[in-house]
């Protein structure tokens, strides 16, 4: 059995892989936290425009510490900057962009993804304070909804499953999953394996996946640079 902790991609490498699929000129929303890293890895010569739910399209990097202007923040409530080409708008317009399918790609984190494309990423179902933010809007908002995730939980349980056990964020919404071991598409209610780390066999990958992995033709090697 492969030692997956030793071979798996880092979060930065998963974000790098997702960034390779974003085309020049795409309008993209990155979920708060881990998915935000995708912006750092845009391939040379491509420029995506990033959308922030609080009413901002195309923003610049974080200002230096002490130079924050708290009127200029992103959806994660971190200070950002505006720059030539930025656009600012109110919240209803912002979610019209989302819900109206004007975004090309939304990239989110996940607790679980089901082979049907169902996503659970907003509630652990336990007794915490429920908070949903824009996640339920985003999963129906983009032409492509991709998920970045470790292939398994910290305890080793599969995160790609037949059916989600946690409260759903959306039904049948995810189109591609970038994991620490593989790239998997969701097609007609099935997980279709597109790429995997060369160090892991299909059999070993299947063993840490909670639903059947299909493959059509050859499975490409998933190779990310050291980051």
């Amino acid at each position: 059995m492969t030692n997956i902790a030793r071979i798996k991609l880092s979060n930065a490498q998963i974000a790098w892989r997702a960034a390779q699929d974003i085309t020049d000129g795409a309008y993209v929303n990155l979920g708060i936290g881990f998915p935000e890293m995708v912006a750092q890895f845009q391939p040379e010569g491509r420029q995506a425009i990033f959308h922030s739910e609080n009413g901002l399209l195309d923003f610049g990097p974080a200002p230096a510490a002490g130079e924050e202007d708290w009127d200029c923040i992103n959806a994660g409530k971190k200070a950002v900057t505006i720059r030539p080409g930025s656009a600012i708008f109110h919240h209803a317009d912002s979610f019209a962009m989302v819900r109206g399918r004007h975004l090309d790609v939304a990239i989110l984190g996940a607790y679980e993804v089901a082979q049907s494309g169902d996503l659970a990423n907003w509630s652990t179902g336990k007794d915490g304070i429920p908070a949903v933010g824009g996640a339920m809007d985003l999963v129906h908002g983009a032409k492509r909804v991709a998920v970045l995730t470790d292939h398994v939980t910290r305890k080793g349980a599969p995160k790609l499953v037949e059916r989600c056990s946690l409260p759903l964020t959306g039904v049948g919404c995810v189109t591609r999953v970038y994991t620490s071991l593989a790239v998997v598409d969701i097609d007609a209610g099935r997980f279709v394996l597109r790429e995997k780390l060369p160090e892991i066999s299909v059999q070993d990958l299947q063993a840490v996946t909670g639903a059947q992995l299909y493959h059509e033709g050859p499975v490409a090697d998933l190779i990310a640079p050291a980051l």
Partner: protein
Amino acid sequence: MDKRLASVTEAVSGIPDGATVMIGGFGGSGAPIELIHALIDHGAKGLTVVNNNAGNGHVGLAALIEQGQVDKLICSFPRGPSSEVFTERYRAGTILLELVPQGTLAERIRAGGAGIPAFYTPTSYGTDLAKGKPVAEFDGRMYVQERWLKADFALIKAEAADPHGNLTYRMTARNFNPIMAMASKTTIAQVTEIVDLGGIDPEQVITPGIFVDHVVEVATPQQEEVLNRAEAVYP
């Protein structure tokens, strides 16, 4: 026509116990801190508050909740870096929460201001947040019916106002403020500067004065993030 008021105290003096109050802002950006603090001083209780969040630290919305003035919060994300005030009250069962997806919250407010009692959205279909709501299929896809959201008062923050109540905003402090102005019977805007008529280019007006009842100048508004770094407490 002159919508200018002399003080935030005067501006909030008509808010009664039990009112529904929309409060602008996303986190601290666009939050009308001085109007909220005036509402704390005014003391209205039993309020239903609509905001994206639940406040942080012990200022602004968090302070209003801490003073026991809020019975119910309608929001999308009641967690923050220091949202302990809401968390404690929620766990103790002394505040009700209506959790609404962020885009649905924005559209319910917009619909309230636009006279549209209900609409269908794909958001939340098949999830716990759609339970009990009517659903319908349009062009092969399932949608959830959501209702408008209106309020008695909106407390909002803007950048410049003229005496007619025309408003501009500063950077991402715009967020929920323009739509809350539309959805409330009485809209009170605190602004950094009140200019004469003609001082705002009509083509730059973001909220037309028809949606605004009162404007009050707060020349150097406080920011929640800055107050919280200084561990400020109100009152």
